[in-house]
Each structure stands twice: as structure tokens, then as C-alpha cells.
């Protein structure tokens, strides 16, 4: 990593001395390269964000263009923060994020550890494990509802085969007790490979010399694992958790297709809840406030986490 930093630094340090371009200062040339991207991002990300904040202070409804738009101050925010439904959605999201992270880190790290034993053909099998995460979550989620069908579904049959339960006696997406786990299972199936790959990169970045030194000291394998492997791979693991955490906090497509938020609103994650407010109930102002709150939450949690991550890295 240090090598790359030097290359980059030398690049920026030296480039300005190079010849300018038709009288344009080098800084201007730099800007012409960057500007189109920044302009597009401003137009499609920042401008909308500002618009969202403005809308969040009104009672605007996108399906009622004729109605008068009134400013309501912070009332939308007040309503959201006191709405028990939204706290339900937050809880459902927390359950989903926690358990998917837990399972994905556990399985992903184990797999990476095993693959790092470099058995023959490991890269082919790695690729096969990676397949689910390359696919469209909505399309795959839609098909999983078929696998989850009572009786005829492959998943139910499989569980019945292993446990002896009657495959028609339970419905993963219809039972209130099972639905939260149904979405955790599919997400874990899809995204464990992502955690696995990052862990694998982490494990491979540990220099062999450290283990060799430890072996000279006759440290047990167990000890090596806890004092070398885990601490060295930890920053990578934490990064994987960051990425998956953000993604799953935003989760929409997979769960919408799997359960649609049901039964009742057991699996109605914040994004699904927000979609209902914004595009089914068309309470645009209210939904905008909701969006702002979600964004601030992700951003806040992520920033705190990144600080913690940097501390771990420094150690």
C-alpha cells in the first residue's frame, strides 16, 4: 500500500511541471477532466438532495399537482419521529442488518479461511460461490418465493428432508415468525461471497514471515490464529461489515420481491416503508423528510464506524 501512495504522490507532485496545454493552466486542464463528472453528480445527486430537503418542509404531494403547496416547518420530521410504524420499520431493519452481518461474517470468514488453504481447484469453486452476488437481487428474490412455497418449494422440501417436518406445514414468507428469517437467509446466500472475497484479500495480505516467526517461537496454531490471523484480517473484516451494513440498511429490491414487507408489516424495512409513503401513498413531503432522516442515519452511523475503523488500522 505504501508503494502506491508514493507513486500517486510523485504523480501529483511532478505533473504540474509538465508543459501546459495551449495556454490553459494545468489546474484548468485538470478541471476539464473532472468537471463533466462533477456536473452530472451535482445534477443527479446533489440538486435532488437539496430539493428533497426543501420538499421535506412542505405538505407537497406529487400526485396532486393542482393542490396548493404549503410550508409546514418541521412538522413532517416531528410526525416521523413519533410514528410507531416507523420505529417498527427501524426495528425490522435492525434485525435484518444485524443477523445478515453476523451470518455473512461468520460464514464468509470461515470460507475465506478454508479457501486460503489453497487446495486444488480453489479458484474455480470460489467463482461458483461468488455467482449469487453477481445476479439481480429482484429477479433472484422473485424466484426464491417459488423455492419458499409450502409443500412444492425446494427449500421447504429440503428442510423437511433434513428435519422430518412436513414441507407444507410452514410457509417461510407467510408465517410471521419465519418471514424475518426468510429474508436473512436469501441475503446471506447472496452476499456471503462478498464478505468472503474481502476476507480472502485480508488473509492473503498477511506476510508469511510473521507465521514463520511465530512457528519458531512454538506458538500453537490456535494462538497464531488469535494473535496473528484475526488482528491482521480485522481491518478487512470491518470494511466488509461497513459495505454490507450500508447496503443492507438501504435494502429494497430483494425483500420487496420476497415478502413485499409482509406478513402484516413484519419485514417492512425502512426502504420499503419509505417507498409506500412516497410512491403508493404519495405523501411526497412527508416521505422526503423520511428520506432525509434515513440518509442522516446512514451517514452518521457510517462516519462513526469509519472513525473506529481507522483506529483499528492505526494499531
Amino acid at each position: 500500500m505504501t508503494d502506491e501512495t508514493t507513486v500517486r504522490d510523485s504523480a501529483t507532485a511532478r505533473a504540474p511541471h509538465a508543459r501546459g496545454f495551449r495556454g490553459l493552466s494545468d489546474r484548468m486542464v485538470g478541471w476539464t477532466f473532472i468537471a463533466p463528472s462533477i456536473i452530472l453528480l451535482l445534477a443527479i445527486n446533489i440538486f435532488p438532495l437539496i430539493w428533497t430537503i426543501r420538499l421535506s418542509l412542505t405538505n407537497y404531494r406529487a400526485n396532486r399537482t393542482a393542490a396548493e403547496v404549503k410550508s409546514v416547518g418541521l412538522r413532517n420530521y416531528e410526525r416521523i419521529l413519533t410514528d410507531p410504524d416507523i420505529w417498527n420499520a427501524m426495528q425490522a431493519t435492525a434485525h435484518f442488518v444485524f443477523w445478515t452481518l453476523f451470518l455473512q461474517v461468520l460464514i464468509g470468514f470461515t470460507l475465506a479461511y478454508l479457501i486460503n488453504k489453497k487446495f486444488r481447484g480453489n479458484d474455480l469453486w470460489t467463482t461458483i460461490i461468488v455467482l449469487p452476488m453477481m445476479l439481480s437481487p429482484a429477479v433472484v428474490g422473485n424466484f426464491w418465493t417459488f423455492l419458499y412455497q409450502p409443500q412444492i418449494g425446494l427449500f421447504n422440501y429440503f428442510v423437511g428432508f433434513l428435519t422430518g417436518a412436513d414441507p407444507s406445514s410452514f410457509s417461510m414468507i407467510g408465517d410471521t415468525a419465519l418471514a424475518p428469517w426468510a429474508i436473512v437467509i436469501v441475503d446471506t446466500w447472496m452476499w456471503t461471497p462478498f464478505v468472503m472475497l474481502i476476507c480472502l484479500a485480508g488473509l492473503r495480505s498477511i506476510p508469511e514471515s510473521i507465521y514463520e516467526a511465530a512457528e519458531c517461537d512454538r506458538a500453537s496454531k490456535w494462538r497464531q490464529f488469535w494473535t496473528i490471523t484475526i488482528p491482521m484480517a480485522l481491518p478487512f473484516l470491518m470494511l466488509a461489515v461497513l459495505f454490507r451494513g450500508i447496503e443492507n440498511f438501504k435494502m429494497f429490491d430483494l425483500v420487496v420481491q420476497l415478502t413485499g414487507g409482509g406478513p402484516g408489516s413484519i419485514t417492512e424495512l425502512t426502504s420499503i416503508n419509505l417507498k409506500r409513503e412516497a410512491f403508493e401513498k404519495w405523501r411526497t413531503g412527508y416521505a422526503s423528510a423520511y428520506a432525509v432522516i434515513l440518509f442522516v442515519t446512514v451517514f452518521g452511523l457510517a462516519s462513526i464506524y469509519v472513525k473506529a475503523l481507522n483506529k483499528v488500522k492505526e494499531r
Partner: protein
Amino acid sequence: MHSRHLLTAGACALLMSGLASQAKAEDLTLCWASWDPANALVELSKDFEAQSGHNMSFEFVPWPNFADRMLNELNSGGKLCDLMIGDSQWIGGSAENGHYVKLNDFFDAEGIKMDDFIDATVTGYSEWPKNSPNYWALPAFGDVVGWTYRKDWFERPELRAEFKEKYGRDLGVPETFAELKDIAEFFQEREIDGKTVYGASIYTERGSEGITMGAMDVLYSFGFLYENPDQPYDMEGFVNSEGAVAGLEYYKELYDCCTPPGSSNGYMSEGIDAFKSGQVALQMNFAFTWPGFESDANVGHGKTGYFVNPKGPNGDQFAQLGGQGISVVSYSDKKDAALEYIKWFAQPEVQAKWWEMGGFSCLKAVTLSPEFPESQPYAQTFLDSMAVVKDFWAEPSYATLLQDTQRRFHDYVVAGNGTAQEALDGLVRDWTETFEDDGKL
């Protein structure tokens, strides 16, 4: 000289007619739900294409996504649809926000009279505000929730005997909802021809409007009212009246006792599947599904019977209205051609053919003709049901009102959270909030 004049005139006429027909030949897109009646409409529309020279395209969306996608299309001012056969509840929003073209002048000019259509469909599908002569659609497809039952099972002597012994009356079409539940319980998990069958298939779908349509269908007859008849938007004590609570409790009991396993999220197509595959004895569904049962190999040819929604505990009898009117989308560039289609569709001959092909015509000339009740086994049930219909809110905020209902009902009936009283009290709060936001309260 003379001949040359003639020739020029002839050329002019030819040119004119060419121009005229060229200007007229449009590519029209009609948007509707993807279901059997839509296929029938495609066939029916071939006559229109032949007569007018216009070309018809269709955009059909399956029911669970229909409202979502089409309202999205209208709200984004899209030009995808020239003609929209939109759900009855959309009419308020589409009228107030200018999605639909107002049809009064057109009806007057073409001599199309709303009196010629079944009254409930005119109120339900065309008018906004309700009960005012402002028309935004032509009633296109009449629909109402009713019930189908397995006539062949009901006629089996051994079952009849057993039923009589257990309940002290004959196994037959239920008069009241209480009787309906007895029958459903009787069939629940019964072995018939070596297969386990279940009592009833009812609406429980969460995503769009399923459970609301199903529960409301029952609640009306139990005394549920949307608002104080004397004071609009006054809902306390009407939405959550004692009767309404009993109705919702009944719906949950029916769901708990008598539905097939895994019916936590079923709507029209799940009902069709359950009934056609011989899984259930009774099925709640919209009338549009009935022609499909008549021709089905498993349940057709006399095995299926039809009945109107039963009575509630006080003898009230109502049914949930379905169905749609056909409207011209105001964002379309081809409004004239679209109006031409409506004019064609309103003709009595076309409407008669529409009924023949499985489309539920709303034209009195068709439904009140003496042959009508005998024309199909379900024709009389359809007429009787249409006489007792009620519909959900058609307010511009209908989607908000509906989503709140979906949530409250599904949370109570399927997920089993809280009580019926809490669910309906909550609903009053939700709806009040929405009407307050709209400035109606």
C-alpha cells in the same frame, strides 16, 4: 377544359381523402390489467381496427402491480397510454389532477347517455365528485365480489347427510355469513376423492388492495360505514362501530379456521388457482373470474355454482364493487382517435359482443334484456350482486387511505397483532390524518 377541371377535382378529392385517412390512422395504446377480459378485449378491438383504420396496441400489467405502475405512469405525466381502463378508485385523483379528459361534452355530442348504463357503475366508474353529473370515464367492465362453490360436492348425498346431522339444515348456498363459516368449517381438511380440501379461499394479499377488498366485502354487511351519512368525513363510530369490529373479527376467524395453508398473501389469481385445482369448496372472488371456471376442465361444465355475498347478522347485504371505466388520458397526443374508440365501444352491438366474449358489459340494453339471466349460469348472480354494491373511497387520496387499510387489516387478520377494535380505531386515526392533510377536516 371541363374534363380537366373534373380531373383536378378528382385528384383533389383523392388527395384529401388520402390526407384525411393518413391523419386519422393512429397507433393507439390501451392500458389495462393483464387478465382474461383483457385478452377478450384484444379480440373485440380487431373490429375497431378494421373499421377505423387505427392500430391498437395494448399494455397489460398484472393485478398486483397494476395500480402501482399505472398511477405512477399517470402521475409522471407519461404518454404511454392513450386509453386507460383504470380502477374505480382512481377516478377522484385522476379527475382532480387532470389525468383524464372530461367526457361530458363528448357524450353529449355523440349522444351517449349515462342513463343507459347500470346506475352503480356510472357512480362507481365515471363520476367525480360522486353523484354529480361529471363524467371522466365510460363504464367498461362491471365487476363485483361474489362467491363460487363446488356444486358437485354440495350435491353428494353422504356429505349432505353428514352436514344435516351436524348443523340441522341442508347443505346449500349460505344465506348469512355465519352459515358460510359453518360450510367452510365443514369442508376444512376434509378428504374428498383422496385429496385434502379446505373450506374457503379469501383475499389476504398485502401489497396492493387484496385484503381490503376481501375484508370490506364482509364488513359492509356487518354494519361498517365509511362515514357518517349526515356529515362527510366523520368516521368515529362508523368505521369502528360495533358491527364493523364484529365483521373484522369474523374475517379473521374465517381466515384462521377455514383457509388452505399458506394463504397469507392471496388475491384474485391465488383464488382462481385454489378453486380450479379443487383445493377449496368456497371461493371469494370478483365476477370476472367466473367465465374462466365455466370452461375449466376441472371445475367447469356445471360443477361450479355462484352466489351473491351473504347477509350480515342484521340482514344487511352488500358487496364490494370492482370493475373499471375506460378513460382518455389527457397527456396523450391522440385524444381524438382515443375518443373514437370509446364511441365505438359504447355501441350496443359491440357491448353485446363484449358480454358474449366474457366481458361484463355495463350497458342496460345488454344486462336487462330478457335473455340475459339465462345466457350464462352466473348472469343472474352478477345482476343481483351489482344491485348491492359499495365501493372503497374514491378520493384523490385513495391510495393513502388504501395503504393504511391494507396495513391495519393485514396486521390484525394475518399477522395476528392486536384486536379488531384496535385495528379499526387505528384506521380512524390514519384516515382522519389523511383527510386533515387534504384540508377536508
